[in-house]
Structure formats: structure tokens, C-alpha cells
């Protein structure tokens, strides 16, 4: 059973490639609705594959049912690793001090209890809906970000020639040309994939389990919370990808739009609370946000970073100190252009009756509304284009106002 994967970090493992960044390559700089004011907007979309536990990232500490449901991994405002209070109700995971600072500076916002229109719990289909922008899975081979790009009016010519990275995420695939970039390193399977495979081998093929474990140089002593970030690990890789992307986007003729994906958020077992596996990954994400900020320099002022995931996780922890596939979760916005310092949420509450299907945080905000609000604020796309082309059949999901 995958749910029983021992949660061990391979401390002696080599560096990992979590995902490259892909960019929109523009032959022309779009004329923005507000080009006159001298803004030169940037947009970065970060996809977290595996379904992020929104309740552990931005915890509703003020909800009386939260601590009981999230049990051993619940965040708290006190203790050895207190969560960072964002307001009187929500608290940010302590592994994200950079995001907390941006939030205090009003350059970051959280949207809580959010979901795409997808209501089943398959990673594959959930990611398909999240990235394609369609209401259901498997309908199209292009992404909403690419279609948004196509809808922009053309302005002056800019040159951009970037290198090849791994694959373009679906969100950025389509008719508008894109280019990719990835850190030049030997791309390797990430720890999570390796662990799942070792677990499968343990059940089905012990000889291969031993061989692969040795090959991966499992450090038998590294168990549980012993996950100190080390050079060359996942966290460093996330920062590296972000740094490279920011550098390319900072130049005057560089791409204005980027998408990238970080893997590993499927925390079925030993998710950890203020420290542990999720904390480790969130630290990496926090570092990536900081790299965007410093790497984009002057351009950060006009930047929005959207962090989204295919769905959330169960409100109640499972029997292995993790969480299973759920529905409602968070989206994060960061960047100088964000009207931040807020947790935007029509909070549904965590009483059993209020949970989606009696198990998940109920989504009260359509993620498409959030993204539409960002696209409109940054690039001036019309309601009609957003509802027909970018997110087909989404008239009911109105663009959220005042995000940018």
C-alpha cells in the first residue's frame, strides 16, 4: 500500500530536478490595456502537483474543529514551532517566513477554500482540469495560460530565444509559441517517485527492492523529521529553478509569462506538522518565491505569482498521519503587483455537515475566478474572452476584483 510508504528522506541522494520552467516566447510584446502607465507586467504560474494540503499551509486556527480534525499534524499559534498569524483566524505555516514577510508588506494574499470545477479525486484528471481551464478532464491539449496569451493584442516586437527544458506544462501548451529552460543537471527521479517504487518492489519484487534501495543509497538513519535541507536537495532545486526563471524574465526582451511545476505534494503518510515532510517542501516553495522576488529586481513591482494545486486534501488526517485526496484548498498570490495582506475566503467552516461529502474542505470560491481576476488585472483581458476562450463555459465564475 502506497499509503504506508515510510517517510524517509534520502539524505545522501543526489540533486533532483523537480521541474523546469516554461515560458511564453513572444514575438511581440503585447499592448496592455494599461501600457500607458509604464507597467510591464509579469505573470508566473506555479503548479504544485500532488494536491497541497491547504489546511496545513494556511491553517484555520480560529476554527474550533480544525485542531481535532488535523490531529497530530495541526498547526498551532504556540509551541516550539508556532504558526505565523496572518489575521485573527488564519495562520501561515512556520516554514514560510518569506511569504509571511511579503504578506505583511501587502505583496502577498491567500485565497482559501478554493477549487477548480473538478470534483473527483484523481491527480491526473484534476491536473488536467487545473491546467486546461476546461470544466472537465481530457477535453483539450492546450492550457488556459496559452490561450490567454493568444488573446493579447500585439505590440512592439521583442526578441526572446530561450533554451530547452523538460516538457511544457499543459497550462502553457497551445498555439502560442513557448520556450523552456531547465537547470543543466542530470535530471533524476525525485525521492517521492523512488519511494513509491521501492514500496511497490517491497511488495512484489524484494530483489529489486534491495537493489534499488542500495542504488538510491538509502540512509537507514534518516527517518521521519530528520530532514534538514542540504545543498543539492529538493529545496535547493526549487530555488534554482526559480532563480533561473527570474533571471530570464528580468531582462527587457525576456518572456513576460512563465509556468513551472513542483512535484511531491501527495502527502498520504507522515505529512508532518510544523516540521516534517510538508514543512520541508513548503520551505522550498518559500525559497522559490524569495528567488522570484530578488531575481526579478525592479520587475517584481509588476509581477504576480499564482500558486495553485489540483485539489485539496481530507480535513481529517488518516491512519498514517497524512491526508488523502480532498477538494477545497488554497491558492497563493505573491508579487509587487498583488493587493495583498489579506486572506480572501468565504469560510465554509469545518463542522462535519459543512464538509464536502463529509470529508473535505468545501470549496466556496472557484479557482477560475481567482485566475481570471489576475489575468484581467495584469493584462486587461475582457470578461468575454476569459469566459469563452481562456476558460470556456465559465460565465458563472466571474473574475475576482481587486486582486491586482
Amino acid at each position: 500500500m502506497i499509503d504506508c510508504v515510510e517517510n524517509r528522506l534520502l539524505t545522501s541522494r543526489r540533486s533532483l530536478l523537480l521541474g523546469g520552467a516554461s515560458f511564453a516566447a513572444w514575438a511581440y510584446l503585447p499592448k496592455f490595456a494599461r501600457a500607458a502607465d509604464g507597467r510591464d507586467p509579469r505573470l508566473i504560474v506555479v503548479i504544485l502537483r500532488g494536491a497541497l494540503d491547504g489546511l496545513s499551509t494556511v491553517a484555520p486556527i480560529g476554527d474550533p474543529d480544525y485542531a481535532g480534525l488535523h490531529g497530530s499534524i495541526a498547526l498551532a499559534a504556540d509551541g516550539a514551532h508556532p504558526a505565523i498569524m496572518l489575521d485573527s483566524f488564519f495562520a501561515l505555516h512556520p516554514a514560510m517566513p518569506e511569504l509571511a514577510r511579503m504578506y505583511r508588506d501587502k505583496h502577498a494574499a491567500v485565497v482559501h477554500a478554493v477549487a477548480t470545477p473538478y470534483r473527483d479525486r484523481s491527480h491526473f484528471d484534476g491536473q488536467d482540469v487545473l491546467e486546461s481551464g476546461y470544466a472537465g478532464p481530457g477535453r483539450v491539449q492546450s492550457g488556459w495560460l496559452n490561450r490567454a496569451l493568444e488573446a493579447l493584442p500585439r505590440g512592439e516586437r521583442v526578441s526572446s530565444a530561450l533554451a530547452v527544458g523538460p516538457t511544457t506544462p499543459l497550462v502553457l501548451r497551445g498555439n502560442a509559441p513557448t520556450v523552456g529552460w531547465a537547470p543543466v543537471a542530470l535530471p533524476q527521479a525525485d525521492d517521492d517517485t523512488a519511494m513509491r517504487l521501492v514500496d511497490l518492489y517491497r511488495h512484489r519484487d524484494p530483489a529489486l527492492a534491495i537493489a534499488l534501495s542500495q542504488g538510491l543509497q538509502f540512509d537507514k538513519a534518516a527517518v521521519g523529521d530528520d530532514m534538514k535541507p542540504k545543498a543539492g536537495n529538493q529545496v535547493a532545486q526549487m530555488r534554482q529553478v526559480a532563480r533561473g526563471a527570474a533571471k530570464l524574465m528580468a531582462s527587457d526582451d525576456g518572456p513576460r509569462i512563465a509556468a513551472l511545476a513542483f512535484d511531491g505534494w501527495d502527502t498520504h503518510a507522515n505529512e508532518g506538522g510544523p516540521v516534517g515532510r510538508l514543512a520541508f517542501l513548503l520551505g522550498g516553495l518559500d525559497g522559490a518565491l524569495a528567488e522570484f522576488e530578488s531575481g526579478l529586481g525592479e520587475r517584481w513591482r509588476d509581477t504576480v505569482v499564482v500558486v495553485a494545486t489540483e485539489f485539496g486534501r481530507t480535513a481529517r488526517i488518516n491512519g498514517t498521519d497524512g491526508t488523502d485526496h480532498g477538494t477545497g484548498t488554497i491558492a497563493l498570490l505573491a508579487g509587487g503587483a498583488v493587493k495583498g495582506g489579506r486572506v480572501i475566503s468565504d469560510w465554509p467552516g469545518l463542522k462535519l455537515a459543512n464538509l464536502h461529502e463529509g470529508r473535505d474542505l468545501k470549496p466556496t470560491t472557484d479557482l477560475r475566478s481567482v485566475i481570471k481576476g489576475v489575468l484581467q488585472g495584469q493584462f486587461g483581458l475582457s470578461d468575454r474572452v476569459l469566459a469563452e476562450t481562456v476558460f470556456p463555459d465559465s460565465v458563472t465564475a466571474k473574475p475576482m476584483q481587486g486582486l491586482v
Partner: protein
Amino acid sequence: MARDSQAALVALNRFGLGARGGASGDLINAASDPRGFVKAELVRGSGVLLEAPGLQSTQQLGLAVFAYQDQVKQAREAAKAAAPAGTPSPAEQKPGLRRNLSLNAAATEVAGQMTEARPADNAAKPDAMQPNAAPPAAKPAPQPLNVIQKTFRTEALARLQRATLATCGFTERLVAFWSNHFCISATKGELARIWAGAFEREAIRPHVLGRFADMLRAVEQHPAMLFFLDNQQSLGPDSRAGQNRKRGLNENLAREIMELHTLGVGGGYTQDDVTSLARIITGWTFAGRQGQLGTPGSFVFNSNAHQPGAQMLLGKTYEPTGLAQGEAALAEIARHPSTANFIATKFVRHFVADDPPPGLVAQLRDVFVRTDGDLKALAAALIDSDEAWKAPLTKMRSPYDFLVASGRLLARVPEDPGAYLNSLNLLGQPLWSPAGPNGFPDTGAAWAAPEGMKLRLDIAAQMGARLGPNIDPLDLLEFAAADAASIETRRTIERAESRQQALALLLMSPEMQRR
């Protein structure tokens, strides 16, 4: 008709190269009639030969390599005349070998070429990412390929495409088996590299469903083998050339014929037999660039180098009949009981189990003896034996089989061999380039080693990252194993956190790794 998915796995993976994805229906067809599915390829014998545009004969390639070497020599001399002494010229760089190819560069190249391949179906618009856009940390521009490298890649691509498109792949597996049994190594030198593919096409393929004795003769008379095991240097001590040049025997080929190609170690031959056979095959050579003995690059019998007189070999006397002396000796060795035993053992070890079941070995040995080395009968007997179908799937796929099976499942016909060649290098099975004349090993101990498994996973993760977004991993699992897949494998794939991860896990699953 009852469908037996487990038997389909045996048919496709143990004997073939794995189920093809897409609309092939391979798994269903194999499940309906497992033995018939495998045997169908034995009937269509013509499908073993490989002819494709751009594939040239050994002779043509010999001429090409001699011409290339002449050019290099001229360029070097011209450079020497022009440059101050001590400056190495570009021409002095060894052609045919990549220099300073780091692991990272190789792997990055693997990754890059996996991207270049176009999806077989055009449902998805290929990424507009241009592989020729210069990365920030670009590799230096590659030198244009010389004729040796180009030929090697053309031959490799033809082989890979054939393997990817074959229905079951049993005959291609047989080709690979015999090619490894009678291996040469492309690392021996420029001639070996340019001839590696032609050797397989000319000496192995025509006989894979023919007679062992014919394959043996074709192999030992092929210029690539004569060059690989130094027989062109071997002179009869009492031959005219031996007397003139005060040089003599080189036993390399004679020893390997008996030790590796026919009788096997402990097969009943002595050092005297090795020496005798070496004498018998003196004069077996190929014409060089001057063409004094014949068309450059063709097999010739040089009587000037041939040891005169009768020879005693394995208790039998061979009269001095020139070329026929050696041909008679090979025919006799091919019929030797030790040869039947050695071949049957190796055959069963390759297809069925690292520790070959003695009963099945005995059965195949008898077929080999009874049919005078009919290799089609040998293959058919294997397919007809219940034991070959009942034995658990414990064999580890070699890197080549793993990569080809992955490509088949993903329904991607390679257009460039680079990704495969680099992956094979990384995984320790460089194409046509084993470390020694005994070929690549054929056991789990070799292919399921820790480092190899880790690298396999990295390569699978690469394929997952690149190709995963466009596939449904559960559909692929149906193509690959259907209900013969274990519940754990199915769950692992269902629960993967992304399509990319799911594809990597599927490619690494026991169902894809074992055969």
C-alpha cells in the same frame, strides 16, 4: 476464446519485446493464442532480414572507411606542414569516439533527444520548444559526424525501428541473442565500428531461422569477426608469408570459436586443438585498402598465409584442402555434442531462467542434435515446451529490451538513435560494444544491480517527465499487462501524484522489468 493475460505476458515479454501501445491489440491477440502469437514470426521467416535505405554492405563500408582514413591522413600531413611542430591538429582527434563526454552531457543529451521524438499520434501539438535554441549553458557545437559515426547511427536506427515495429519481436530477440552470442565489439577500432551493423545483417540475420553451421561459417568468415579477433594477423608459421615475415599464429579467433561460439568451456577441447584450429584457419582474412587480395573489405582466403599440411582436430584429421579445410572443421565442430549442450543451455538461460531448468535444456539439446542444428526447430521447440510457459517471469530485462519495450508501449518509433544509444551507454549495454568477446551477461545479477536500477529509474523518470503529460497511464497499463498486472502495480500507478510520475512507475514496474 478464453483469454489468458498471464500467458500473454510470457508471449510478449519472455519471448518478444513487449506489447505495443496504441491500437496494436498486441496483448489481446497474445492472450487469445499465446503460442500462435509467438510462432507466427517463425513462419514469416523473411521478416528476419533487414534491408533499409542507406544500409550498405561490408564491402562498400570497407571502401568508405579506407577513403575516410586516407582523408584524415592527408589532412594531418597538410596540417603538420602548415603548423609549427607540437601543435596537435584537429585531425588527430580520434574519429569515431566522442571525446570527454561526461555523464551529465550524455544524460542531458538523452533527455534532449527524447524530446525531439515526435508523438506517433498527432493528437497533441508538439511543443514549440525548439531543441536548437541555445541553452544558457550550451554544449559546444557538436562536430559533424564522420562516415563511421554516421554509419553506426544509421545501423542502430534501422535495428531500433525494426524492434519497435515488430509484432511480437521474437525474431528480433533471436537476432539479438545470436548477435550477442557471436559478438564483435565496435570499440575494437574504426573497421569494427563501421561494420558492426552490417555484420549482424549479413552473418546473423540470414541464419537466425536457418542452420547453426551456416551461421557459424558466415560469422567466422565475416571481415568484422576476423578483424575483431585478429585473424587477419595470423600467419601459418610454415606458410610463405609466415616464412617471409618471420611471424606466426594468432590463436585468438580459434580459441573463441571453441570456447565461446561452439563447444564451451569444458567442452572437450585441449590447447592442442586450439592451436590446430588456429593453423587450419590461417589465411582467413579480408582484403585491405590496396585490394591486392580482392575487393577491399571482402572476405578472402589467402593461401600465402595458410599453414600447409593436414591437421588433427578433436581426434579427427583434416586434409590440406585450403579454405575447405577450415570449413569442414567448423561443420564438424557445429555438430559436436558439446556444442548442442552449450547452445541449448545458453538459449534456455536467455529466454527462461538464469538457472536453466535441466529438463528443458536436455529437450532442446536433443532437438539441436536431431535436426542438425536447425535454429527454427530449436526456437519452435522452446515455444512448444510447457516449461517455458510455466516458469515464473524472473528474468530481468536487459537495458536494450527495457528501452525498446518502453518505446513500443509508448508507440514511439525512433527517428534518431541518440537517446537510445546514450541510455544504453549509461545503463552498461552500449550497442554492439561488449567489453569482451563473451558478449554481454545474461543474468539478473548483471542487470538488476543497484546502480543500474537507479539509472533505469532516472531514465524512466525522464521519459515520464517528457511523455507523461500526453498519456493515460492506466490505458498504458492495459496495453502492457491488462489483468495480469498485480493489484499493487495497478494501485501504485492509480495513486501516482501526476501522469509523469505514473508513467515512470509503470515503466519501472515488475511487469515491465521482468520477463
